[in-house]
């Protein structure tokens, strides 16, 4: 026979359970706009029915329900969508940093415009043409020198600006690595806390949310794969366990463990490649560099996207030379562009100087001596060297000293006699050499190995290639943004708080609470009848 007060107890349980559901509703509503918050749900479970099954159970018909309890409070979330989201977030991180760095490069190169290198070169060519029609005009000479200086300045400006952005990128890499390491450190702490809570039978929903938020953040920096290991003790079957995070490449194969269930590794970027580029990325214990214990990953082989890879690829990394695999070269968007500028400046200046040396300047004509005068020079160096030349190219001292050192008249070897021409025979009005100098710009030179093209064409190709790369990066950024947003939408669809829904639930729980309370009143009336109304028959 069940207890007299059993109904009271059932109603009380009902009130308590509904109350906890109302509290959870309150929690959901409060966190409706908290980033990374997943809505929570109270899993109601019926309490054990009476009588329970046993040898000496009471022989009454049927099992009577004894009410409800709040079994567990669980967050509503779809783990599979997290995996998808992180995959897209990863690509987005990569393309965003690529698009960003290429965008900066485009604004520095500033083409097509009236102030870029192409225009400066056109103006230089114009000034040479102006001098060629009137070789004795000192005004035209001075314009040639000024425009030549503008060409050198433009090269310097482009090269230096690119280098300074490249330096910025290096610090961005360091900041990104710090961010990743800090996230890993926090994740490790959360893992520890989760390991302390779960064995007691609780679901640490807030910690799960925080952990997922951090993993999302990490996934934009490097490509990761997340596994979970169960914690022991008296865990609820619904617990998620501790996260184990692995660094993976884009095919999904593991490159190393970033976070295990007990500790974490730090990412380290080593600038040990040629000309301080990135050669290796290491995974090691926090705070110490230990060559023997650190896992070393060769960057050029590391096919793992994310913001970090995007940054390193634009900053510069070491890779094997395509033509000669025994050699290593610096690659990367900025290194490549700096290299192209060097190549342009070096090839052009060399050829220009060669033609200039051959010609006779007014000074040579009046002194009746033949000299070799350079037009462009390499600051600080006697001979011109290619590496970094774009940042050092300038007008030679001779030209700076005297406008009459600009060689206008034809010199060199006379093809008929095969003898060097005599400056004594040269005239000031002869502008053959200036025409030849102007022609150097239009001449097909070996700007690239085995591929001759003129200055303008080659530069146009360089800019075109940059434009295509930047366009692609922008497009893929947009693509991965919309994919990431689509997945995030699905995730939100599962996990985000709907106020309408919460209000509906609130009414439901409130009414259930009220009804349970009403049950108590009814029980009270029943008991009143028993206690005060029964056994008074005949009175």
């Amino acid at each position, binding site marked *: 026979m069940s207890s007299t007060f059993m109904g009271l107890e059932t109603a009380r349980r009902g009130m308590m359970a509904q109350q906890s559901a109302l509290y959870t509703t309150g929690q959901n509503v409060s966190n409706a706009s908290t980033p990374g918050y997943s809505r929570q749900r109270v899993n109601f479970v019926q309490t054990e029915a009476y009588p329970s099954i046993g040898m000496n159970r009471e022989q009454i018909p049927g099992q009577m329900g004894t009410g409800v309890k709040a079994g567990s409070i669980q967050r509503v979330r779809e783990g599979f969508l997290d995996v998808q989201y992180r995959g897209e977030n990863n690509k987005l991180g990569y393309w965003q940093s690529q698009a960003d760095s*290429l965008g900066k490069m485009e604004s520095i190169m500033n083409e097509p415009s009236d102030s870029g290198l192409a225009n400066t070169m056109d103006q230089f060519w114009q000034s040479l043409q102006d001098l060629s*029609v009137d070789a004795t005009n000192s005004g035209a000479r001075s314009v040639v020198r000024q425009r030549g200086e503008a060409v050198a300045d433009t090269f310097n400006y482009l090269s230096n600006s690119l280098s300074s952005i490249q330096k910025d990128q290096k610090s961005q890499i360091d900041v990104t690595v710090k961010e990743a390491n800090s996230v890993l450190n926090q994740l490790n702490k959360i893992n520890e806390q989760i390991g302390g809570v779960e064995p007691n039978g609780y679901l640490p929903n807030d910690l799960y949310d925080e952990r997922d938020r951090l993993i999302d953040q990490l996934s934009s920096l490097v490509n990761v794969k997340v596994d979970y290991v169960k914690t022991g003790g008296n865990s609820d079957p619904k617990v998620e366990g501790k996260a184990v995070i692995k660094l993976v490449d884009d095919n999904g194969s593991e490159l190393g463990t970033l976070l295990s269930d007990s500790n974490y590794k730090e990412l380290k970027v080593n600038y040990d490649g040629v000309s301080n580029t990135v050669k290796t990325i290491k995974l090691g214990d926090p705070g110490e560099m230990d060559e023997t214990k650190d896992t070393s990953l060769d960057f050029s082989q590391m096919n793992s996207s994310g913001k970090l890879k995007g940054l390193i690829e634009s900053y510069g990394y070491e890779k094997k030379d395509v033509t000669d695999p025994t050699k290593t070269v610096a690659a990367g968007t900025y290194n490549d562009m700096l290299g192209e500028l060097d190549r342009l400046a070096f090839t052009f200046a060399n050829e220009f100087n060669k033609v200039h040396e051959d010609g006779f300047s007014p000074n040579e004509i009046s002194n009746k001596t033949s000299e070799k005068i350079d037009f462009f020079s390499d600051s600080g160096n006697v001979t011109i060297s290619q590496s970094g030349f774009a940042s050092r190219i300038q007008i030679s001292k001779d030209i700076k000293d005297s406008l009459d050192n600009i060689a206008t008249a034809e010199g060199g070897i006379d093809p008929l006699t095969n003898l060097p021409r005599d400056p004594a025979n040269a005239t000031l*009005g002869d502008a053959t050499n200036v025409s030849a100098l102007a022609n150097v710009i239009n001449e097909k030179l070996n700007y690239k190995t085995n591929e001759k093209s003129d200055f303008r064409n080659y530069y146009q190709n360089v800019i075109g290639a940059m434009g*295509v790369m930047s*366009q692609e990066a922008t497009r893929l950024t947009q693509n991965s943004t919309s994919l990431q*947003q689509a997945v995030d939408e699905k995730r*939100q669809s599962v996990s985000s708080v*709907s106020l309408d829904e919460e209000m509906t639930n609130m009414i439901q729980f409130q009414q259930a609470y009220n009804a349970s309370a009403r049950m108590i009143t009814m029980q009270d009336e029943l008991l009143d009848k028993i206690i005060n109304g029964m056994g008074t028959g005949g009175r």
Partner: protein
Amino acid sequence: MRITQSMLASNSLRNLSDSYLKMGKLQNQLSTGKKITKPSDDPVVAMKGMFYRSDLTSVDQYKRNLSELHLWMDNSEAGMDQANSGLQRVRELVIEGQNGTLSPEDRKAIAVEVGQLKQDLVKTANTQVAGRYIYHGTDVMNPPVEQEEPPVVATNITDPTQLKLINNYQVEVSKGVNLKANVNPGNVFSQDLFNVVGDIQTALETNNTSGLDGSLGKLDKVMDTMSAERADLGARSNRLDMVEDRLGQQDILANQVLSDNEDASIEKVIMDMTTQESVHRAALSVGSKIIQPTLMDFLR
């Protein structure tokens, strides 16, 4: 699919910012008048743009070079015209001087006129345009007639190998095409010319009529040489006109191609802008409608 307020809000925000982005792009096109502002907007247009700009610069430059050619050719022509009439007059005076009825005094008077004409020829030969002696080939800083009485021309005009070096004032008129600006100094104001005129003057002064006999033939030869050079200059001048016409057409074409390639069609951009504006308005109004009512507004 379950949709929540926060999703609606963030979607609406994203649509608005997309719409702003599009309007920003159109606004940029309107204010610059250009289709693109950076190579990634359209790499092909950017590359072509650079190419056409260089093209246009060179056409402009070649047009500028032409004016220099005009300067040289027109002045050379004028000088030669003047020299030719001078020589014509000398020829008349020779014929007049050969007249037997003249007295030695009359011949002296004619000799004075011939002397004046000779001086004029020297001055013409030493014509300077913008500080340059145009009848001395590339040796523009030195006068072609070094000594005026009796006139002696510079050695680099009389020496054929040196003459070859200076007879070469070239101006580039289009890629790889050069036009000679000067007239051959050896054919125009040669030593022969001054010698012939000088001899005529001496013969007249000394009343040596027999000395005048061969002069007419020599004078005709010198004039013929000059006429031939003048014809050559005329031919070159014609070619210059043709080149000028062509460059003019190229200029128009280059401008047109550049504009076709880069310039935004304003009508189209304004249309797009107006469309985008109405889309934006709709997005704003939808946003304000979506966010307002919730169940809470009805729960009292």
